């Protein structure tokens, strides 16, 4: 007899099997959660979305099991069909404007060596997509109303926003930098280098005073912002091609200190992946993932399962190009 099942339908017996977490939990869930349209939603049976589908594809590519090929093919088809005429990707099919998920869709397609034309159009949109701060209107408004003393940051340094018409934030800027670092050749827009230079400077400017990043306000009303695991991981991964500095070193130190305290599977997996990429010693991930899974089943969040599988694979394919520079232990 199987015995009682958890909220995702697995029996406790599976938990003590010899299989690793990725094989026992992540892959079965991923394969069983694929929608009929070929995409994935944030949870089983949820509507397909660009971000999750992109991560699901990168996960399947990381584990490289033959059983995943058919699923990957259907996922790639969904992703290509979701692209908007202007080259961007919306969060969900049916939305008329593109968003940050464009970086992830390009990354997923590029890493699977699929649809270079679609990737090129996506990156062209990305490079032309500017955040709203620093625009002419914004400069005029700032001049008329006076400079705000609420947040202290250099608004001439611009990255990418979550959605068009909004400001630069750490995570979407990092996603864009990661894909622009990965893509070379004809798919890479000619004017990408200047965007990369500005965005890297923006990330450095937005680092919290003691190291690490939050969503993008390092100081509000003169008070130092508190860093968070997710944005810190993405910023560090985005900047790993840039020569190290002491502030980045302190961000890695901060992340290393946070790793044992991570309360969520997503944060834990991302921190593990990042520390590994920088060659920092990191405790085994698997026991901590099992423990978190037993408590909340990751709240059924498919993204957390994807990041866990990628971190466990030891092959973060989106970091395949180049090594981190000079910030070892």
């Amino acid at each position, binding site marked *: 007899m199987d015995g009682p099942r958890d909220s995702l339908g697995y029996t406790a017996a599976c938990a003590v099997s010899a299989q690793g977490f990725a094989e026992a939990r992540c892959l079965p869930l991923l394969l069983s959660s694929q929608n009929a349209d070929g995409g994935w939603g944030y949870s089983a049976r949820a509507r397909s979305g660009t971000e999750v589908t992109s991560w699901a594809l990168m996960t399947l590519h990381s584990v490289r099991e033959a059983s995943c090929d058919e699923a990957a093919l259907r996922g790639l088809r969904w992703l290509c069909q979701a692209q908007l005429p202007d080259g961007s990707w919306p969060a969900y099919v049916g939305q008329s404007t593109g968003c940050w998920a464009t970086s992830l869709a390009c990354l997923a397609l590029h890493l699977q060596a699929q649809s270079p034309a679609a990737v090129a159009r996506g990156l062209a949109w990305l490079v032309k997509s500017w955040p709203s701060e620093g625009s002419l209107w914004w400069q005029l408004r700032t001049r008329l109303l006076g400079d705000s003393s609420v947040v202290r940051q250099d608004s001439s340094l611009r990255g990418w926003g979550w959605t068009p018409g909004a400001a630069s934030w750490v995570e979407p800027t990092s996603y864009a930098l990661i894909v622009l670092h990965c893509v070379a050749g004809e798919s890479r827009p000619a004017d990408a280098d200047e965007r990369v230079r500005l965005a890297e400077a923006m990330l450095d400017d937005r680092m919290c005073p003691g190291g690490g990043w939050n969503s993008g306000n390092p100081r509000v009303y003169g008070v130092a912002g508190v860093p968070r695991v997710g944005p810190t991981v993405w910023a560090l991964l985005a900047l790993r091609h840039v020569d190290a500095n002491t502030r980045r070193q302190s961000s890695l130190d901060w992340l290393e200190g946070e790793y044992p305290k991570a309360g969520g599977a997503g944060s834990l997996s991302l921190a593990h992946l990042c520390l590994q990429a920088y060659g920092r010693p990191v405790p085994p991930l698997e026991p901590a993932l099992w423990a978190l899974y037993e408590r909340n*089943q990751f709240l059924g969040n498919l993204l957390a399962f994807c990041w866990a599988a990628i971190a466990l694979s030891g092959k973060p394919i989106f970091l395949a190009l180049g090594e981190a520079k000079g910030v070892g232990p």
Partner: protein
Amino acid sequence: MSLRSSALQPPFARPPSTVAIRRASDYQADLTGLISETLCQLGVAVRGKSVLLKPNFVEPDPDGVINTHPAVVSAARESFLLLGAREVKVGEGPGHERDTEAILETIRLRDYLGPLSGVFVDLNLDDVAPIALVTHASSLRELYFPKTVLSADFVVSMPKLKTHHWVGATLSLKNMFGIVPGSCYGWPKNALHWAGITQAILDINATVRPDFAIVDGIVGMEGNGPIQGAAKPCGILVMGDDPVAVDATCARVMGLVPERIDYLKKAGGLLGHLSADKIRQLGESVASVRTPFAVLDAFRGLRDKQHGLAAHAATGFSKLNGLNSDGNP
């Protein structure tokens, strides 16, 4: 900021509102008894209905100052179940932290609610549907909302009693920002800021009308809220079926003039009662629990000097860290 007045039709019409203020010295008090008794007194009818509790879970915070305390959430859930609700879910979409599981683990929500599967919904990742906004105070014409919110029969906003560094105070109306899905708008939901925070608060609340508000004022936050302020014990819960009246009452308790809080003033002409003479108090009077909150200098103008100074003398307030708690000239 001006609102397009023609977009705010039709104005609301309702009889005077009732707001209950209940004393609760700490989170170990019989909160279920307190809340269920108040719901009965206010004639809340939820038998057979699906209820969604929307607390304010912002960031991992083991000190219990930032987030609605899980003891209050649990007590509210029990109370609505006691009243015959068909189901009571808890849903939140944190604005900065993508790892919702990390927040829930830090505040130990599971210890209070039991297994979270089927009870808690991450509104950032829930399935979404586009909804035309009822009002056009902001430049937004539609927003995507989580289906869990749209399908609930009875929505309860459950904020923490806090100051806020952008809008002065964050209470039940501002708390509804958390229903806007990060999967569409990012972390933070910056598109709302660019559309105008005040205006977006009005549009969201006019479209998804919360049916009830329960404010956790047992320990609030003053100063540089909603994240970096200081704990402010007040020992109260504030409840009512008119969120504007509840927020106005909370502002008065905090020593602020609700008519000077931009979004509250405008909500008073659109969604509910702001004026004290249209609000019947149940339980404690405002005067008996008034506890002036320290505010950032930028919000000194919100303070009710007449009442605030008296209370200031009684509580021995002092100026701290550039914050103004004493209505200096």
